[in-house]
């Protein structure tokens, strides 16, 4: 059939199974928005208030559904505004297709109005990108874009389409399979002798006495939760997860030690530091996970399974490196290994764990007028019984959420990991709500990150999205302040933040706004927010200068972590600020 380029865009999106597009119109993308009028019954367009948030929402939509997230923007500033969101999707391996309008093909290169070399700008932050100047290429390019975004290690693909290519007609037949010359979803370089590698892995596992599994997001992307649980339970090996790996195994599973790395609980990092075998599955040894590479788990052998060949031996050399989908690899590896348990090793880890628990801030009895972020996280977990999806922003609250919310559901946490994009939580919650309409969705952000995404409150109202927004307000850029306190000798620089009256702000948007300043109020507002059938914004006014511990300072080793300063509750200790208050 004969279609315009613009119609081809919408046909492909619908054919690929995505029914929501986050975008913002403008001159060069006008033909596509014109065609949208005729597709509105099959695809819902969400008008965001800033293109960055369209990309972030599309990213979260992918994480919530496994379906490719789509965002759309016009040329020039519209497209450049997508950049942060695309970089976020690149770092966290999210399948996103970004469609941008470009000036008419005869104007390309002439510095035309709103012309930017968008494929040039986004080259290093996309898995691949295209500039389409000829409508005849468009059907194939659109199909390839979705295929590349979704397959192998997922990532963002940008398609920049000249205005005239959107307007011209082309013969269109839906493309059901894509054959590309260079691209393979899984591209191990050279031949891999999989049986020999698996045999070697089995031998390493057989001989291990203190093994730890490092579980990453690759398990999620490979939809390998079941295979992973079977492998864990048969091998009897404890699991530490990366930030993005949270949700690959329930956190109440006896073998799940929980999150590792810079702000992982001390016992988790102690286990890794003392391990004699690391089995890394779908993770990439980010520096926030390893600390100093020279001293990282130096007595451990390493089995590394990843879908991306370029991750093997990048940061940590692997004794056995397998390029493949975690699901396929585990299906073959699990039958080879023996059913085992490691009582002595687990006893040691549990000893470390007990020590960690004794230092927990939740054990400190708070004065009535004080609220700490960890208590807010715990209260949200308890009030929701953990039955919700959480979208966090970046910073202290993000780390406290990982520590004090027990994630028992599959892919329950959606957060910006690799790029650390402030302003992620609210657009992510919007994308998540479209992906999981029946789910209770919470956006948790700090006062800094939230102020980057305030405009999207209008989107929430326009779309009538039932999202609960929690702002953890300490009137500081808390994590930056923490670094300045600990690493820059307490010299605070540009971290103190004035904030608006968030309750009134919510009301200005016609949204229900609430505030809590102590734990009693916190529980009360969480309850009321959940009862309210509609969006709610809650400001939790927390202590200004508390730090996230434990912490491995950048470049330090796992065993050099700073522990929580709190004395065990039994000894009657408390936090420094409370001593000051008492005086």
């Amino acid at each position, binding site marked *: 059939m004969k279609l315009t380029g613009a119609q081809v865009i919408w046909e492909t999106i619908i054919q690929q199974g995505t029914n929501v597009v986050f975008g913002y119109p403008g001159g060069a993308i006008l033909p596509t928005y014109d065609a949208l009028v005729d597709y509105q019954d099959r695809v819902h367009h969400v008008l965001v208030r800033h293109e960055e948030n369209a990309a972030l929402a599309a990213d979260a939509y992918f994480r919530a559904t496994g379906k490719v997230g789509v965002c759309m923007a016009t040329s020039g500033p519209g497209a450049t505004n997508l950049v942060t969101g695309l970089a976020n999707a690149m770092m966290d391996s999210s399948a996103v297709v970004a469609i941008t309008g470009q000036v008419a093909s005869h104007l390309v290169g002439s510095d035309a109005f709103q012309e930017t070399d968008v*494929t*040039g700008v986004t*080259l*290093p932050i996309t*898995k*691949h990108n295209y*500039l389409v100047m000829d409508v005849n290429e468009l059907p194939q390019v659109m199909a390839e874009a979705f295929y*590349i975004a979704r397959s192998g290690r997922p990532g963002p693909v940008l398609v920049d389409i000249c205005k005239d290519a959107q307007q011209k007609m082309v013969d269109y037949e839906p493309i059901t399979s894509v054959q*590309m*010359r*260079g*691209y393979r979803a899984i*591209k191990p*370089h050279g031949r891999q002798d999989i049986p020999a590698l698996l045999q070697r892995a089995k031998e390493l596992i057989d001989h291990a006495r203190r093994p730890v599994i490092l579980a990453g997001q690759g398990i999620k992307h490979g939809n390998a939760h079941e295979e992973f649980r079977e492998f864990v339970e048969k091998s009897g090996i404890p699991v530490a997860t990366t930030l993005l790996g949270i949700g690959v195994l329930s956190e109440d599973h006896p073998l799940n030690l929980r999150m590792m790395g810079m702000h992982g609980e001390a016992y988790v990092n102690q286990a890794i530091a003392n391990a004699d075998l690391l089995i890394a599955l779908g993770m990439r040894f980010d520096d926030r996970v390893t600390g100093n590479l020279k001293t990282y788990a130096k007595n451990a052998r390493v089995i590394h399974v990843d879908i*991306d*060949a*370029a991750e*093997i*031996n*990048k940061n940590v050399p692997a004794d056995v490196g397998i390029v493949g989908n975690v699901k396929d690899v585990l299906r073959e590896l699990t039958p080879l290994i023996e059913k085992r348990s490691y009582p002595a090793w687990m006893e040691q880890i549990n000893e470390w764990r007990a020590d960690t628990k004794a230092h927990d801030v939740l054990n400190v009895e708070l004065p009535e007028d004080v609220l700490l972020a960890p208590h807010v996280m715990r209260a949200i977990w308890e009030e929701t019984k953990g039955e919700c999806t959480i979208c966090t922003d970046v910073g202290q609250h993000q780390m406290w959420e990982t520590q004090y919310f027990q994630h028992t559901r599959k892919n329950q946490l959606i957060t910006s990991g690799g790029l650390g994009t402030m302003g992620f939580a609210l657009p992510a919650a919007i994308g998540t709500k479209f992906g999981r309409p029946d789910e209770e969705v919470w956006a948790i952000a700090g006062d800094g990150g939230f102020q980057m995404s305030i405009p999207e409150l209008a989107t929430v109202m326009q779309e009538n999205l039932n999202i609960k927004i929690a702002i953890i307000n300490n009137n500081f850029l808390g994590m930056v302040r923490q670094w300045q306190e600990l690493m820059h000798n307490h010299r605070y620089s540009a971290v103190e933040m004035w904030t608006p009256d968030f309750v009134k702000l919510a009301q200005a948007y016609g949204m229900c706004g609430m505030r809590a300043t102590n734990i009693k109020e916190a529980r009360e507002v969480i309850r009321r927010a959940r009862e309210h059938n509609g969006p709610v914004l809650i400001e939790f006014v927390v202590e200004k200068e508390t730090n996230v511990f434990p912490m491995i300072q950048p470049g330090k080793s796992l065993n050099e972590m700073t522990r929580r300063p709190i004395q065990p509750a039994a000894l009657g200790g408390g936090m420094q600020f409370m001593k000051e208050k008492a005086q």
Partner: protein
Amino acid sequence: MLIDRIEARKNPTKHTLVALVENKPGVLNRVASLMRRRNFNIESLAVGTTEDPTVSRMTIVIDASRTNAALVERNLYKLVNVIDVQDVTNLPTVVRELALIKVRVSDAQHRGEIKQIADMFQSRIVDVAKESVMIEVTGEEQKVDSILNVLQDYGILEVVRTGRIAMTRG
């Protein structure tokens, strides 16, 4: 300085990668961008067409003492437009480089000497001017380095080298 460069060029840590890439606009930019953002050091990069007009061939030389060659290979391989990558360093390979060298000549005697040198290197004089000659030399880098070294005394006015191209034998 030239001697240093010759020493460096004899360095066995040099790796030669041959990449077949789709002959499309912007592919060279993608490869160059990858090298830059991963902080990979490349010594030379030669691009040209092949027997298949839809395929270009890149020969990339990297100093493996500063850059992990396997990582470069794997990252290159990830690019959507890259069809194949091969590290031919340890394979039987014919390696060639072409250089054009413009040498100062002050008198006829010099011109005769330079002609002799060119002959000894099985290279050709491709241009003769009043005060200079241009030599075209083909061979492995050491050969080009050697003739440059010999010609240095006469005064080298200009040099252009293509960078290495390579093809496995057989």
